[in-house]
């Protein structure tokens, strides 16, 4: 009897676990959810988390105040949950009118499913809206030559940070080339300081190293070939060289001991840098703000240094190239009502990146993707850093989008998986290329 119960209870149990896989179907028949707004009201979903959340909400509130007839109802979601939620909601026809996103491969999957509105002609007739924004930010918004999203918020290049205190103590100079980097590794290790901080468990953090190694060695064409779906694009000699370089750095002890146990979400990697336990860190420009908040006088006392990733000897890549997030992206749900779409478009032209919002982004250490924002930057407390980010973004010959955002979710997952194994040294560069070639174009 007892066992009969158990075996049935486990069947129930498995049913439940299977239901997890079928959760899409279940949530599809769920409640109408926050996506459904009443007519005359558009809905807008975006990410929670301060200080960005308040700025986004502030833009919506300001818009609603000016347009009481056609307002926007905002709902916030936590980052990882949002990625799943938005996909489920769109698939079920329950998505919001305005969809916040990252552009690139994720946007393409929405476009392929006819879920988002083509904004090409709208931008054509509203050229002033388009011309206000960084041209380089439009890259990830364009799928098959058509614009499906409006770039918004800030530009976030990946920056090589360094700790001036540690450099002074060891008597070292910031690296000017890959050779310098490799030469600095034993120097810092001998002084008992980790050369580079890295939150390896998060995987995309490791990816930033490959993005720069590929670009500096072979130029942006190497990854572009992958993006364009050329067969065997990962077997390019430049790609193999980049992969080998990074593995050499791991073998030489370039990254902090136990880096594979560190997660970026908890900012432990940044803490290593500002507590003098690591000398350098390759990370997004957004970490500046959190290091300023958490690091005591590390940032305000002028101990934080920054630079673009140095060139590789004999490499073809332009040292002005950068990678990162060229912006954040707002799309319009194709299944929204005409009335809702009109509100959304009005929001795009009159509500997004208005002066007050631009100023708020600058105050949080971000560079808004608005042409001429550099004049505003000069008066900020963080003028030096913001000026650097503005220059990096606006003068970059190529501003590549992060690989995991640019690729389809399917290829991105395989990529992150293989990157983790590459940094574990459990696969060779050749094996990496082989497994990645298998998912090209998927």
């Amino acid at each position, binding site marked *: *009897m*007892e*066992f*009969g*119960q*158990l*075996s*049935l*209870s*486990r*069947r*129930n*149990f*498995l*049913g*439940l*676990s*299977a*239901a*997890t*896989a*079928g959760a*899409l*179907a*279940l949530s599809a028949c769920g409640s109408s959810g926050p996506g459904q707004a009443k007519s005359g009201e558009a809905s807008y979903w975006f990410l929670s988390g301060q200080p960005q959340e308040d700025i986004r909400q502030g833009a919506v509130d300001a818009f609603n105040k000016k347009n009481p007839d056609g307002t926007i109802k905002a709902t916030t979601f936590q980052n990882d949950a949002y990625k*799943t939620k938005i*996909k*489920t909601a769109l*698939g079920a026809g329950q998505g919001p009118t305005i969809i916040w996103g990252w552009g690139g491969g994720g946007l393409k*999957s*929405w476009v*392929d*499913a006819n*879920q988002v509105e083509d904004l090409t002609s709208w931008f054509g007739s509203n050229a002033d809206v388009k011309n206000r924004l960084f041209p380089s930010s439009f890259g990830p918004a364009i799928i098959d030559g058509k614009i499906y999203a409006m770039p918004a918020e800030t530009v976030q290049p990946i920056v090589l940070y360094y700790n001036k205190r540690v450099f002074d103590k060891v008597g070292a100079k910031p690296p000017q080339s890959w050779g310098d980097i490799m030469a600095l590794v034993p120097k810092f290790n001998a002084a008992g300081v980790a050369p580079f901080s890295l939150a*390896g*468990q998060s*995987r995309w953090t490791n990816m930033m190293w490959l993005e720069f190694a590929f670009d500096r060695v072979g130029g942006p064409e190497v990854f572009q070939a992958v993006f364009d779906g050329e067969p065997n694009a990962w077997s390019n000699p430049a790609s193999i060289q980049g992969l080998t370089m990074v593995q050499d750095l791991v073998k030489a002890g370039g990254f*902090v*001991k*136990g880096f*594979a*146990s*560190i*997660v970026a979400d*908890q900012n*432990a990697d940044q*803490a*290593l840098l500002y507590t003098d*336990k690591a000398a350098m860190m390759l990370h997004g420009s957004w970490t500046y703000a959190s290091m300023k908040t958490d690091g005591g006088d590390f940032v305000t006392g002028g101990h934080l240094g920054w630079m673009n990733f140095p060139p590789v000897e004999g490499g073809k890549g332009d040292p002005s190239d950068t990678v990162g997030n060229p912006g954040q992206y707002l799309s319009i749900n194709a299944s929204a009502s005409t009335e809702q779409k009109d509100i959304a478009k009005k929001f795009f032209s009159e509500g997004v990146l208005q002066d007050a919002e631009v100023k708020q982004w600058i105050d949080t250490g971000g560079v808004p993707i608005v042409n001429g924002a550099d004049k505003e930057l000069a008066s900020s407390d963080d003028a030096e850093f913001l000026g650097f980010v503005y220059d990096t973004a606006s003068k970059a010959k190529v501003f590549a989008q992060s690989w995991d955002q640019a690729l*389809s*979710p*399917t290829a*991105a*997952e*395989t990529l992150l*998986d293989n990157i*983790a*194994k590459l940094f*574990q040294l*459990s696969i060779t560069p050749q094996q990496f290329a082989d497994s990645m070639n298998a998912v090209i174009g998927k």
Partner: protein
Amino acid sequence: MTVIVPPAPAVQTTRPASSAGGHGPVGWMVLPALVVFVAFGAVPLLGVLGLSFTTWDGLGVIHPSGLTSWRAVLTDPGLPHAMWVTFKIMALSWLFQTPMSILIGVFLAGHQRYREFLAILYFIPLLLSAAAIAITYKALLDPNFGLGAGLGIPLLQQDWLGDSTLALGVVVFVVSWQFIPFHSLIYQGAVRQIPRSMYEAAALDGAGRVRQFFSITLPQLKYTIITSSTLMVVGSLTFFDLIFVLTEGGPGDATRSLALEMYKTGFQANLMGPASAIAVILVVVGLIVALLLRRLGGRGDESQLEGA
């Protein structure tokens, strides 16, 4: 492991026919449980089976694609690896949890006041959510800012979640830490049900405490061991939340069990077809394991009190 749907009424669906009459009129009482089971157990299961023969990214149109998904899953070296990881977690956590739970359970079965107090303390891990436990352990095990670094104990300053072997060990340990209290509770109850007369008789025959434990307590716990083992095995098969938060299957794929493989394929790589195929495999493996454990228990009609 903690989710146990009350299944008792459903069992009886097979009973009325086989057992002697008189049960018939109460057959309708089964209905509510049956409806819930069909709606939330059987129907999604069939849906997943159906999905496994399609290609779907979770967003667009579902395309029937025959055996494509199955071929992709069965030829993927990730599947045997995930099964092996699942098996290792299952076996190791069973090996660790069972002796610990029995010992603690037997200890707590005593009626002394201090033991009652300890029982409450032991029970605490079960009150915490798996995600909270995972995040806490992650912080404690951080190689630079964790317990080892904080207390300056080099032994604790390992690359706990970054080394393949250590990471698996950590997963098994944390899973066990969370669930030993639950199983101890089961054993505590079972030990208290053993007739006192047996111990009195054994004591008269001159058996010491250790002898009593091995000759009376352990044999008497046979069915409890099977019950608790089934729960452990079933639990580790579908174990997801703690591993997901703790290691996300990493480093590399060192702790990627079947359940994680299913989630990652379906919800991160957007391959719903292959993910459904993995889910079906999970169901089949689960049923086989449950069946084997049932067999192990024997027919259940022999007396446990023989010679008592």
